[in-house]
């Protein structure tokens, strides 16, 4: 059977038994074939040991991934995101970089979920440098102060607070602050906070 036809028949999730049945082969022959396809990159496995081993077969090669913004946020935030594109970073990538990328998306859910990253910021100078490069330190500071009201976060060194921001910015374009509880933060950083308290509670649970 041609490789492509074979993959077409097998595409989807299988156990050794269902793969054998689909191809009208014996169990051991099916396992040998799955192992060969795995080496070629068409099969990813799950389970094994006490659990039943599952084989995910695809007609396309399943490349190994590097982690990206969605992976970092989903690792640390209880509010999970469904990525609408595959973001991968080849190089150093941690919560500091993910936070900056999250702010750049201008997406309500992504920014909301990224607030949990403040508890995992270990390198404040790096976060400061990166955000100054992208011109978004003002937004990072405002988001930090919002996060601090609701979650446990790591402390931001006081020296990063000593700025005056003349230009008004929005976390999300044209969404003004509506919650009175955020007025003080808006005033301090000159950044509008689009969230409602209920949104943030949702992100926390």
């Amino acid at each position, binding site marked *: 059977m041609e490789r492509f036809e074979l993959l077409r028949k097998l595409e989807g999730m299988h156990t050794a038994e269902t793969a054998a049945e689909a191809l009208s082969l014996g169990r051991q022959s099916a396992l040998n074939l799955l192992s060969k396809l795995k080496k070629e990159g068409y099969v990813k496995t799950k389970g094994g040991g006490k659990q039943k081993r599952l084989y995910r077969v695809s007609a*396309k090669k399943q490349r190994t991934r590097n982690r990206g913004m969605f992976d970092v946020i989903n690792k640390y935030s209880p509010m999970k995101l469904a990525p609408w594109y595959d973001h991968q970073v*080849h190089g150093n990538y941690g919560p500091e970089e993910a936070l900056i990328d999250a702010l750049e998306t201008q997406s309500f859910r992504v920014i909301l979920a990224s607030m949990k990253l403040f508890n995992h910021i270990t390198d404040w100078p790096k976060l400061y440098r990166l955000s100054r490069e992208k011109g978004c330190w003002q937004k990072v500071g405002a988001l930090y102060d919002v996060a601090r009201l609701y979650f446990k976060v790591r402390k931001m060194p006081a020296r990063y607070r000593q700025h005056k921001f003349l230009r008004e910015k929005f976390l999300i374009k044209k969404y003004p602050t509506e919650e009175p509880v955020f007025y003080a933060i808006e005033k301090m950083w000159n950044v509008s906070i689009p969230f409602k308290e209920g949104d943030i509670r949702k992100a926390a649970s």
Partner: protein
Amino acid sequence: MILYEEQMELFALIGKNISRDIECYAFGGTAMMFYGYKDETKDIDLVFDEEAAKREFIKALERLGYEKTSALNIYAPEKLKDKHAPAMYRREDSRFDIFSRKIFKTILSPKMKEDVYAVHDFKHKHNLRLKVLRKEHIVMLKAVTERKNDFDDIRTIAEKEKSFDWQYLTDEAIWHYRHGDKWVLLDVEKMMRELKQHIFIEKKYLKQLYDAHG
């Protein structure tokens, strides 16, 4: 031929050789490798939205020993007369086809820019951001570029991809036609007709193309 792993190493190396952040869009065989449709490609097709980013990328290529080469025998002669034909750089058996804003007559549409399949960041001192176009855009651009093997690549995508969105492709082709690319409908229609001999494509998509052409 460039293998997937070699391509990733090459991008990482270019990322180390740039002196500012760069963003570009990958299509053609490069994009197909990111999807996992194939393992090797003859050339790396990139389109830049910003001229300065393109210049910086070319500088990095030249630093790595790539030299400008002719597009003769690769693209059809009438395509090469187009002012948006690619700049081509070669080193041994790897080649970059670099476009600026337009792939011949086809512009980078808002949907191409927003609705990408993947974003790969090659971070070093500066960031090389590679946005991989959606499969429907890859097919449309392959229909437009009409090089050797382009039809085989289109067939591979259409056959391997269960969720290929023909309506999306049709809408995009019509959008490009209405924004000045007078050839795109003919190219896509020709490609669909040929493809119909191998896979099932609903008639309504061809009808939409004919209606748009008037």
